[in-house]
């Protein structure tokens, strides 16, 4: 006999089925939120400025954000690793044999100012020697891994082409005259009369967003952040900070997210740097067109200012253990440039969102850094030019650039990828980034960090290195559009 199901039971069983399907629906919605490329802050398709979605107002502070310990001073030209290594490189590989310098000649035979620098830091010189040896080995190793990483290398080279102008194009131009001339070049119009400095700041920010900036902040220029000893357009010289460098417009963009997560081999520094050049060049032209002076400062080498502390002053974020400005929107995936100008602007205030406190207890970047360059100290305890902070061993960091499986020295960026703040703008991460700064107890960050360390997988630091020390690991798998095995007819020997 056929058993009839009552209407009531039908509703009850139907509702059970509905509940199950709804749970499956939540899984689908969650999965799609994770995959959604519109959560790629800075690479999404949003209205200008929507990438700067974090409301900084409640976290603005009038307290000092830089821990000053005694007398402060400007950074010398040779204290920048790129500058001193460039000097050394020119000496070691000088075309004139009699002018060459070799490591066996010793520090005494080096010219000033790098001689004094290496006398004070002899370990930096031996690290550079090691770094050059690793670079030679890197070129040998590249032959073995070239097929696997050829697309990533080509992608990086494409972005780098906008930086180095090997084919004649470089935008913006590098200065060829003193700032008092160069920063004012081509100004034809009277200075645009802004209603108030606030109007000027708001307009400049909107223009910077329209040129592609994800984050923009404004600060008065602290002279301590200006390099000493070399000035583009003039050469090696001691100089006073030009009077017209009154304010700095600081703007940031992220690296492309999926390649960034696949550092050190699939990512590139140049994708963000080339975007920054483009934005800087246009903003430079715009500012001069409305009658004011402008000078772009762009990584990796075109600058006279140290950009991270400027970004802290401009309220974009806080300085992290890894030496990178960590912002609420982009985490450590933040690449920054600045323009110094004489427009009277209304500066932003620095913010305190608990990043420093988080860095105190996290240490994931230090644990996973393949060079061991990042400090494990519980709190910043190094005095650098009068400021207390964590020290990064730049020389060790560079050695790993010259070691990992790339065609040449083009960075590592593992510390950007593994930073728990480097998360896309989807609901779970944005919930965390909104909750944590509002929690005075620190319980949220402790719980987040416990999950981060227990649930997430990080390769051991040495795994990022080539054999025999490691296995050319990447933090995440490379994105499919950079994996040559997906597109090219190779033998896949590497599998």
């Amino acid at each position: 006999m056929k058993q009839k199901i009552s209407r009531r039971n039908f509703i009850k069983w139907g509702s059970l089925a509905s509940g199950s399907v709804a749970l499956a629906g939540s899984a689908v919605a969650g999965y799609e939120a994770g995959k959604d490329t519109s959560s790629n802050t800075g690479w999404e398709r949003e209205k200008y400025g929507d990438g700067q979605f974090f409301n900084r107002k409640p976290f603005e502070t009038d307290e000092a954000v830089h821990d000053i310990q005694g007398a402060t001073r400007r950074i010398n030209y040779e204290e920048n690793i790129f500058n001193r290594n460039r000097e050394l490189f020119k000496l070691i590989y000088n075309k004139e044999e009699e002018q060459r310098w070799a490591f066996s000649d010793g520090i005494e035979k080096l010219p000033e100012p790098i001689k004094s620098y290496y006398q004070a830091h002899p370990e930096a010189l031996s690290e550079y020697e090691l770094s050059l040896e690793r670079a030679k080995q890197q070129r040998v190793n590249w032959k073995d891994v070239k097929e696997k990483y050829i697309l990533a290398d080509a992608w990086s080279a494409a972005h780098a082409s906008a930086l180095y102008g090997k084919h004649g194009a470089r935008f913006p131009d590098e200065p060829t005259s003193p700032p008092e001339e160069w920063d004012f070049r081509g100004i034809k119009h009277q200075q645009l009369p802004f209603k108030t400095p606030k109007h000027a700041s708001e307009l400049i920010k909107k223009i910077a967003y329209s040129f592609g900036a994800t984050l923009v902040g404004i600060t008065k220029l602290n002279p301590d952040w200006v390099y000493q000893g070399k000035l583009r357009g003039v050469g090696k010289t001691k100089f006073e900070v030009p009077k017209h460098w009154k304010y700095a417009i600081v703007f940031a963009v992220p690296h492309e997210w999926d390649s960034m997560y696949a550092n050190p081999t699939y990512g590139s520094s140049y994708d963000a740097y080339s975007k920054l050049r483009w934005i800087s060049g246009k903003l430079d032209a715009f500012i001069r067109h409305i009658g004011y002076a402008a000078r772009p400062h762009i990584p990796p080498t075109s600058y006279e200012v140290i950009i991270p502390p400027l970004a802290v002053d401009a309220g974009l974020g806080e300085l992290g253990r890894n030496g990178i400005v960590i912002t609420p929107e982009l985490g450590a995936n933040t690449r920054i440039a600045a323009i110094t100008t004489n427009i009277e602007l209304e500066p932003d205030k620095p913010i305190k969102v608990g990043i420093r406190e988080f860095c105190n207890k996290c240490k994931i970047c230090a644990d996973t850094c393949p060079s061991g360059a990042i400090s494990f100290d519980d709190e910043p305890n190094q005095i650098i030019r009068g400021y207390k902070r964590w020290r990064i061993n730049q020389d060790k960091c560079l050695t790993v650039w010259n070691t990992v499986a790339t065609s040449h020295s083009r960075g590592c960026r593992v510390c950007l990828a593994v930073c728990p703040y480097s998360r896309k703008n989807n609901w779970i991460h944005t919930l965390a980034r909104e909750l944590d700064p509002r929690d005075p107890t620190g319980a949220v960050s402790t719980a987040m960090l416990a999950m981060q360390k227990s649930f997430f997988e990080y390769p051991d630091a040495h795994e990022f290195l080539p054999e025999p020390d490691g296995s050319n690991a990447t933090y995440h798998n490379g994105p499919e559009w950079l994996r040559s095995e997906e597109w090219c007819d190779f033998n896949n020997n590497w599998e």
Partner: protein
Amino acid sequence: MLLQSTIFGPLFWMLQGILLFTFVIGLHYYFKDKNIELTIPKWLLIITYWLTINLTIAAGFTLIGEDESRAGIYFLGFFSVTLIIIGVVLRRFILKVK
């Protein structure tokens, strides 16, 4: 992407709403047939519990979607066990406390 689709995105969320509504109606009849009287606070607890299950599943799958599969699975494992324990306690509370 289903949820970014102009047509399927809104339909998906409408369907999800209907399913949740149907589920609550069925639950109402279930408790009625079992002669379990539900006060408003009890209903709120049940709905909160149900939403927490949904959010946990969504969060786990968000992590899986952004290529953090291990984190997603561990997250689901850890919070499923936690939610089962909470569910057992909640059931006892609903049945015992008048």
